[in-house]
């Protein structure tokens, strides 16, 4: 078939009902219906959002106040919104896959193997690149600049461009739900299976461009955050005084700078193979498939720590805040974070122990892998000792944190097992592995992100999240996780392979049913999070914490009103030690008028470059996927043209006059004076208006 000039190779077979019209048996029909339903859901959701925006006249504000904003807090919030939207799809897919595996005894079920293959490929791609990455990037974006006493990140426009690239990647994956198919090559996209000779269709190309766009965005975010932490810290904020979350952000960002390029190289070379007939990863012509495994996991393993370190930062803040104590072993936690970041680059070969390299090499990488459990163990003990003799309050983030402590240690131990090459040979490519990495990433990363979302939500929007629905969601997450994934350890030991569409072994059935029940709980957990948000928005008056310190916080972001003003700090803060805000509270000085008075503040002016990159990036990825060359060329030209035009912009900043800053500060100060301070025991009641009695003070009274 010769590609059409206008539409490339895009034709009617890409439409979501194609599988139904072509169906030859019941299974194909069912599979087609599942696919069509998912596509309809995506379209309806998009239309519903558009309708609500139109009805509430939201397009203008969305463009002016959000899409074009360069405020790091708003960009962070938008990242988290993307993460939650994609989480909904990722969890739904997981539930469908669990359903298939429970029904798949005797080879039945509701999905064709090809459809199932697309599901686990999008599920993995989405969860890593479009849930975990945007979530942690969003949290870092929102929190880190405030914690180091900065006004913004070093490169606010670049920040918006990074978001645009991430959104473009996410949009491509969403589009693939409607204009099908996606890759069946798994989230790691191993050639030769993703080569043109095995998958000539559009699937792997969707994967390549979605992943490439988002990894470029992550590289730029890593650069931005690293430079911000090195260069924008306020006076007195030495590196060893930074909150732990900033330390983990720094190490994660450095990992992003060095670990994302290997992925770009891997996807880029795969694209050259597919588009131009190169022989890099092909079976023939002198290509080398193992090179992809090396490049991909040279990214993929550090990626695991990119995902986990920010969560470790959140846990440090959560344990310390809700124990009313400074973090135990600050120095060792910093050291452990750095060790993990360095070691993460030394273990990538454990992802292909069974691919035929020498036993000596496997031994070296096995031992290197086990070594990571040492700094991780240090962290676990530090967190437990932070709670020891503290005044522990079991708030919602603490429920996640305690669940994390137990579950993560179990997952870590299964990791030490897998690090032994001889054991890895036994459970290779079984559900044991699937159980292991979900055990790390759900209690580790996702619980951490949700805990962080709960912790910092009041700072972002000025009101707390409803805690009853928070407890319900947390309980459902923990129970659902245990039910969904512990059976998979057993199934793996019983030899059940991963990515299996159907099976004939009766003994596996009870455990797959248990896992399905767990997946059901997790779906309920996500729904509970949605209800929590809706309930909280409705009760926002009762949950409001305008003074801005609802949890007796210890770091600088809690010194600001909630929501924080665009300029963060009315004057540049000065820090004298660790737990900067706690120290200020102890000295009773945090509400004092700034000594030097107020000054004009420069903030970045709104810019359309980020949204332009998002739209043109999506168009470029879509065009390349479907061989629509004119659109690809046009989109790239738009991006390059926008960058050149941006170079000519000179009034990129606007000034907020000192009077505005002073008026804002004075009003907040008056509010704080009028707001009664609340004891920690009352922090979940409506009495909590964000004016905390420090835990230490409460103990003495």
């Amino acid at each position, binding site marked *: 078939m010769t590609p059409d000039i206008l539409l490339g190779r895009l034709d009617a077979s890409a439409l979501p009902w194609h599988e139904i019209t072509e169906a030859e048996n019941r299974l194909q029909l069912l599979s087609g219906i599942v696919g069509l339903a998912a596509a309809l859901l995506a379209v309806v959701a998009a239309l519903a959002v558009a309708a609500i925006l139109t009805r509430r006249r939201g397009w203008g504000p969305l463009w002016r106040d959000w899409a074009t904003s360069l405020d790091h807090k708003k960009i962070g919030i938008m990242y988290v919104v993307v993460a939650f939207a994609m989480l909904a799809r990722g969890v739904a897919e997981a539930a469908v896959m669990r359903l298939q595996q429970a029904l798949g005894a005797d080879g039945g079920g509701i999905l064709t193997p090809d459809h199932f293959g697309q599901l686990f490929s999008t599920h993995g791609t989405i969860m890593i690149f479009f849930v975990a990455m945007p979530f942690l990037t969003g949290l870092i974006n929102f929190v880190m600049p405030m914690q180091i006493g900065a006004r913004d990140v*070093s*490169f606010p426009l670049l920040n918006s461009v990074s978001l645009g690239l991430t959104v473009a990647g996410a949009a491509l994956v969403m589009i693939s739900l409607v204009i099908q198919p996606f890759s069946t090559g798994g989230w790691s996209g191993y050639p030769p299976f993703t080569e043109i000779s095995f998958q000539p269709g559009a699937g792997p190309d969707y994967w390549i461009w979605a992943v490439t766009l988002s990894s470029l965005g992550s*590289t730029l975010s*890593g*650069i*931005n955050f*690293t*430079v911000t932490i*090195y*260069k*924008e810290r306020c006076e007195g904020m030495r590196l060893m005084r930074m909150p732990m979350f900033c330390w983990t952000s720094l190490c994660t960002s450095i990992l992003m*700078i*060095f670990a*994302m*390029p*290997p992925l*770009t*190289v891997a996807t*880029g*070379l795969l694209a*050259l*193979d597919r588009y*131009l*007939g*190169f*022989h*890099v990863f092909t079976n023939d*012509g*002198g*290509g*080398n498939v193992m*090179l992809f495994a090396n*490049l991909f996991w*040279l990214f993929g393993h550090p990626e695991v720590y990119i995902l986990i370190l920010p969560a470790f930062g959140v846990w440090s803040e959560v344990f310390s805040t809700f124990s009313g104590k400074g973090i135990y072993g600050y120095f060792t936690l910093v050291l452990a974070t750095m060790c993990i970041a360095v070691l993460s680059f030394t273990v990538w070969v454990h992802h292909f122990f069974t691919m035929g390299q020498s036993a000596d090499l496997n031994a070296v990488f096995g031992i290197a892998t086990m070594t990571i459990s040492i700094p991780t163990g240090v962290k676990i003990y530090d967190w437990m000792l932070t709670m020891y003799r503290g005044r522990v309050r079991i708030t919602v983030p603490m429920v996640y944190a305690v669940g994390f402590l137990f579950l993560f240690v179990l997952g870590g131990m299964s990791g030490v097992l897998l690090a032994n090459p001889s054991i890895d040979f036994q459970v290779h490519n079984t559900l044991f592995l699937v159980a292991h990495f979900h055990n790390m990433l759900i209690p580790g990363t996702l619980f951490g992100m949700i805990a962080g979302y709960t912790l910092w939500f009041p700072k972002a929007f000025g009101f707390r999240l409803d805690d009853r629905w928070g407890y319900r969601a947390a309980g459902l997450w923990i129970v659902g996780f245990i039910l969904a994934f512990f059976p998979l350890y057993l199934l793996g030991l019983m030899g059940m392979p991963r990515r299996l569409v159907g099976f004939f072994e009766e003994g596996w059935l009870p455990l797959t049913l248990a896992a399905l029940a767990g997946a059901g709980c997790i779906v309920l957990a996500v729904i509970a999070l949605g209800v929590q948000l809706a309930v909280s928005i409705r009760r926002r008056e009762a949950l409001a914490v305008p003074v801005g310190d609802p949890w007796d916080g210890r770091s600088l972001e809690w010194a600001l009103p909630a929501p924080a003003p665009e300029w963060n700090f009315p004057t540049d803060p000065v820090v004298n030690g660790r737990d900067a805000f706690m120290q200020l509270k102890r000295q009773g000085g945090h509400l004092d008028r700034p000594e030097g008075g107020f000054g004009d503040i420069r903030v970045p002016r709104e810019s359309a470059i980020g949204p332009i990159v998002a739209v043109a990036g999506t168009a470029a990825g879509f065009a390349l996927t479907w061989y629509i060359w004119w659109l690809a060329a046009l989109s790239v030209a738009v991006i*390059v043209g926008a960058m*050149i035009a941006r*170079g*000519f912009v*000179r009034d990129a900043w606007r000034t907020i006059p000192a009077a505005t800053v002073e008026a804002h500060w004075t009003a907040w100060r008056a509010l704080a004076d009028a707001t009664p301070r609340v004891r920690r025991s009352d922090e979940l009641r409506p009495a909590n208006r964000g004016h905390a009695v420090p835990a230490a003070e409460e103990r003495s009274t």
Partner: protein
Amino acid sequence: MNTRHPGLNLGAHHGAADDAAEVEIFGFWVFMMSDAVLFGLLMATYVSFLGATHGGPGPQTLFDLRSITVQTVLLLTSSLTMGLAQLAMKHEEGTRRIVVWLLVSLGLGGAFLALEMHDFLSMIDKGGVPQASGFLSAYWALVPLHGLHVASAGLWMLAILGQMAWYGVDDGVKTGLLRLGVLWHFLDVVWIGIFTIVFVGGLA
């Protein structure tokens, strides 16, 4: 916090551009570090594919060391002239001198690219196309990527020259030129790696 770092720093009399330079140049160097990972991995790929000629033409048939040496001289000289342009800016020797040195750099970069194109075409003539073998795929993934970087840097220089025509040597132009210089010198460093590993290493 007035630590300095590699790069041609402006002086205090450059006002706001001097304040901005530190963060912007540092950020650009960090960007270059991630770019260096990209080139490093492609060089490693090339080395591991040296033997994978799959019956196709190898380095001995394809590479013209004389032309490569001329390209190297052109590119390294353009780094010198770029440095002279930046010095002219730093010592405020007038817009004309900056523009002249920039145009000389651009010309040298263009000559490098023209010669490289010529080499590419003659390679294709000899059957050295990327589809021929893993070795050639690795070559074509690495060397043209460097050329693409040089071409982009040239486009960026044109954009900065346009800004100079519009605004004169203002703060935006100053910090832009500093960053462009970092990219320009970085591409020389990468080229030295390519010259050594791809061409000398390939022929050795």
